[in-house]
């Protein structure tokens, strides 16, 4: 991260200049060559209910290793709901229920013997609003490794330094690790949350609109960071920002809402899932095209 300042500026310009080419895409050749890596998550006919309310249905997805997969779609389309199935965060919501299949490396995530706590140690999550613990920067990062039984100070220090470096935050906070995390800026807090996630060495990092509370410069840093850590982690990101999906992701899933004529309630569903370049340049479904070209949503 020695040149983070420079590269940050270049990316933030693209982020702040929506007047140029509509999407900052790589060449089609680069993007079409998405390899078929190992499937980490597989969902088949997935539906999620909150009580009687069917929040999302008919989700068939293959999330692949070391790729960034983006979920886009209008509000209420169920993209966050689906994301929260991958680390069983929905378990924490009273009345939430999952139907259909969702597997992690072939193992049924909602199987009777699966421990949700163990799932979350392997599948980390970064939330919409930066949510550092109201403690020191050090304690924020030490919490996860300590849960995993790391007790030696030296080992813990090493993990913390490494995680902060990977989250491109080390240089900014190395002199004040014992200061409160609440004193950091919003963007720094979010990178701290990513570092906190990285510190437990998950295989997957789920990001639920991680940049929606951040300004364009902080957003650019996070996006840059995602590209850097993608070699080590599989990333799934929910975003409201189509340009962000276009910039950072390898594959994109487009969700939309449909009104159920009987109950007059909206249910989300997956419309199209393909390589990001295909979604943004040559989508198969006209609803996808309408959304990505800004005609609705």
């Amino acid at each position, binding site marked *: 991260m020695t040149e983070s300042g420079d590269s940050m500026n270049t990316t933030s310009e693209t982020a702040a200049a929506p007047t140029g080419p509509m999407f900052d895409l790589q060449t089609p050749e680069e993007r079409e060559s998405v390899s078929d890596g190992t499937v980490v998550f597989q969902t088949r006919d997935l539906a999620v209910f909150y009580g009687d309310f069917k929040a999302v249905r008919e989700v068939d997805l293959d999330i692949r290793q070391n790729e960034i997969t983006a979920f886009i779609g209008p509000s209420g389309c169920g993209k966050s709901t689906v994301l929260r199935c991958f680390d069983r965060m929905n378990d924490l919501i009273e009345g939430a229920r999952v139907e259909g299949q969702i597997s992690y490396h072939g193992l049924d995530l909602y199987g009777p013997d699966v421990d949700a706590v*163990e799932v979350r140690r392997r599948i980390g999550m970064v939330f919409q609003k930066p*949510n550092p*613990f109201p403690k020191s920067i050090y304690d924020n990062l030490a*919490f996860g490794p300590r849960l*995993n039984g790391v007790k030696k100070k030296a080992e813990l220090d090493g993990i913390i330094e490494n995680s902060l470096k990977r989250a491109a935050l080390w240089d900014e906070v190395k002199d004040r690790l014992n200061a409160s995390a609440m004193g950091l800026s919003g963007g720094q807090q979010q990178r701290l949350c990513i570092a906190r996630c990285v510190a437990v060495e998950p295989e997957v990092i789920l990001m639920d609109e991680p940049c929606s509370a951040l300004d364009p410069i902080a957003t650019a840093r996070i996006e840059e960071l995602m590209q850097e850590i993608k070699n080590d982690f599989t990333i799934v990101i929910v975003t409201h920002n189509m340009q962000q999906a276009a910039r950072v992701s390898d594959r994109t899933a487009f969700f939309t809402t449909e009104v159920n004529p009987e109950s007059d309630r909206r249910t989300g569903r997956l419309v199209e899932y393909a390589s990001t370049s295909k979604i943004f340049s040559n989508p198969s479904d006209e609803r996808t095209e309408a959304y990505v070209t800004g005609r609705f949503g």
Partner: protein
Amino acid sequence: MALTTIGSVGGGPARSITEGLTKRGIDARSKIVEGLLITSLGVSLLILVVLVVDIVQRSWPVWTNRPGDFIRDGLNSSTLDSAGVWSAMKGTVILAVIVGIVAFPLGIACAVYLEEYATKSRFAQWTRVNVRNLAGVPSIVYGLLGLGIFVKALNGLGNPAADLQGNGFVLFRYVGNVLHWFSGNNGRNIFAGGLALSALVLPIVVITASEALRAVPRSIREGAFGVGATQWETVRHHVLPAAAPGILTGTVLSLARATGEAAPLLLVGAVTGTLITGNKGFVEQMSGPFTALPVAIFSYARQAGDDWRAVTGAAALVLLVLVLIMNGFAIALRNRYDRKW
């Protein structure tokens, strides 16, 4: 209203603007409301000031004649010159400690279960409503509970205590001694009083702790769960510390409430006449008859004459100061752990 003429630069604002934006007389309704609000505040403050001034004034003779003796003397409602608050003060402090040991952990544990584990179940909702109702139960009813259950139970410890004390094993004898301690004065001892007060403030502790826990943002819990913490790890490391200031404030305030109660203690058998603890040993004192400041105030208030009025006022002032210290402590705690998230 169509604004066709907008004030030109240098020409001043157009008439329509001037008319639209200038004051039209006094807004009488606002003034009246403001006046009423200030009056309400004044009346409330006045009551408080009159109360304090009256107590200080009334107790003045005691503070000028024998301040040290008044503090050091025991409860004595027959001889004016040796009437004091020492035994009552000790009683109140010990009662506060018992409430702290019994009601706080129990109440906080209840709140953690209701807020963190049972969240939205029917049972939890039903329990919450009933805890609120319990908080409204008059204190004398808790006195009946104390008399009917705690005094009886503590008294009941007497027989097994005697059996164990006669046992050959040293350990059993120790247990016997402790039980004997708890059963002192036929169960009408300070433990019965402390338990009755604990029962009284338990619902308040549960409610305030629940509110403090509910005020902890969901995002903190999600953050902890997100890195693979269990429910208990999340509560222990993040939710409880974050809620600590609120919980502490609530518990200290409920302690202040407990120390001000006379009715339950009277029913449980607190001494109203004369109780001089003098140079009795600690255990002997704890298991013997007890009294407390509100009970002392009650005792002194029943005596006729201005001199007794002064003694009553002095005892009230001591209690007031004690409670104010506790409240000040609560405020200091809250300010110190000012939470940020």
